[in-house]
C-alpha cells in the first residue's frame, strides 16, 4: 500500500508540476525570447516595413 500509493502520489505530483508550472514557464520564456529576438533584429535591420 505504502509503495503503490506513494508512487501514485508521485505521478500526480509530477504531472501537476509539469503541466501547471514547467510547461507554462517554458512557453513564456520561449515567447519572450522570440520577442527579444525580433526586437534585436529590428535594431539591426530597422523597423518592420509595410504589407
Amino acid at each position, binding site marked *: 500500500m505504502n509503495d503503490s500509493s506513494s508512487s501514485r502520489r508521485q*505521478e500526480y505530483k509530477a*504531472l501537476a508540476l509539469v*503541466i501547471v508550472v514547467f510547461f507554462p514557464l517554458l512557453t513564456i520564456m520561449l515567447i519572450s525570447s522570440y*520577442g527579444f529576438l525580433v526586437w534585436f533584429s529590428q535594431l539591426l535591420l530597422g523597423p518592420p*516595413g*509595410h504589407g
Partner: protein
Amino acid sequence: MIRRLTQNVIRPLKSLWKTLSRPAQYLSLGTIAIASFVMGIIFWGGFNTALEATNTEAFCISCHSMRDTVYPELQGTVHWSNHSGVRATCPDCHVPHNWTHKIARKMQASKEVWGAVFGTIDTPEKFEAKRLELASHEWARLSANKSLECKNCHSYSSMKWEDMSPLAAKQMKSAAERDQSCIDCHKGIAHHLPSTDGRSHQLLTAVNISVPEVGKNYYVVLQKPVFMNATSKEEAGMLNIATEIAVTDKSDGRVEFRLEGWRKRIGTGRIINEDFGINIKEAELTKEAAQSDAVVKVLEEKVDDVTGLTWQKVTVDLLTNDSELTDNVSGMWEFASTTYREACSQCHSQPEVAHFDANTWPGMFNGMIAFVNMDDDTQNLVLKYLQLHSSTYAGSHAQIDDQHNQSAKTPETALPVAKRQ
C-alpha cells in the same frame, strides 16, 4: 553544504525524472491527456488575457510619465472625442496589431520598465527633454510601416474626396497614389510636437552679432521691443525680424535708430511696411508712438491703384536695445532658406519662392504654419524671406544692389537711411 544540496535539490529532481521517464503505472492515458488539454486551454487563455490587459489604456497610464504628459495632450485632439464617437486608445496606435511585432513590442517595454524603476523619465521636465528622441522612435516606426496603425482605421480607398476641401482632396489624392505614410504630413496630430524653441537660438549662432556703431545700418536678428527714449521701460512697439535700421546715436545699452518704410493711411497707422503697397512688416508701433509727430515723419503720400488705399512714406525715430543686431543679413536668409526647405518638404515639394508675389505669401504661409512647429521669430523670418524673394522682387536684385552701391558712394544725405535689401 554539498550533502544538503544533494538531499534537497538533486534527489527530488532525479526521482521526478524517474517518474516522468517511464510509462505511467497508475494514471490512465485519458487522465493525462484531458489534464494536459485543459491546462493548455487555461494557459493560452490566461496568456492572452494577460497580454490584452497590458494592451489597455488603463495599463499604459498607470505609469506617471504617460499619465501626466502624453495622455492629457491626447484629450485635446480629435482622436479623443469627435462627432462619430469612435476614439483611439494608446495601443491602437502604439502597439503593432500583428502578433510577432506585438510580442516584440512587449519585450521592448522591458526598457520602459527599466526606465520607470530607475527614474529615467520621472518628471515632466525630463520628459520634455526626451520628447524629440521618443517621438523620433515612433516616427521612424510609422514611416517604415507607412503608418500601418493609422491605416487600421483610416484607408485611402474609403476616403470621400467630394467632402474634402479642393486643396485637401488634391493633397490627399496624391498621397493616396503613393500610399504615403500619414505622419509624413500629420505629425503631432495626437500629441504635442517636440519643441523647436531652440531654432531662434540657432539663428543667433548662425549670424555674427555686431556691436552697433553710429552711422551704420544693421539688421534685427530677433524681434525686439522699441522705446520712445533712453530710459523708458514702456515698450513703444516691436521691430520685426530682419528689419534694416540705421543707427543714429548710442546711449547706455540702447541705440537710437531711424527706420524708413511705408504705412497705410488708415486707422492709427501702427504697422510700418518695407515697401509701397506691399505688406512686409518692418515694425509694429503702439498707438501713441504711431501718432507722435516726434517719432513718425511723413515724407510723401501715394495711392495704391490696386486697393485704392493711400500709403505714406515715413521715417520712424525710436530707440532699441543694442543687442541682437547684425550687419550680415545674408546669413539670416540662408538660415531662413534652409528652414523653409526642411520644414515644408516634410509634407510636399515646397513651391519655388518666386512662385507667389509678396502679398500672396502671408496667406499661403499662415495656412500651412499649423503643420509645422516653428517658434515665433523663425516664423516671421521665414515669411519675410519668402516675401522678399517672391516674384515681386525676383529679377530685380541686381538693380537693387546697384542702387545700394550708388547711394553708398554718394553721401548726399545727412542721416543714413535704411535701404531695402
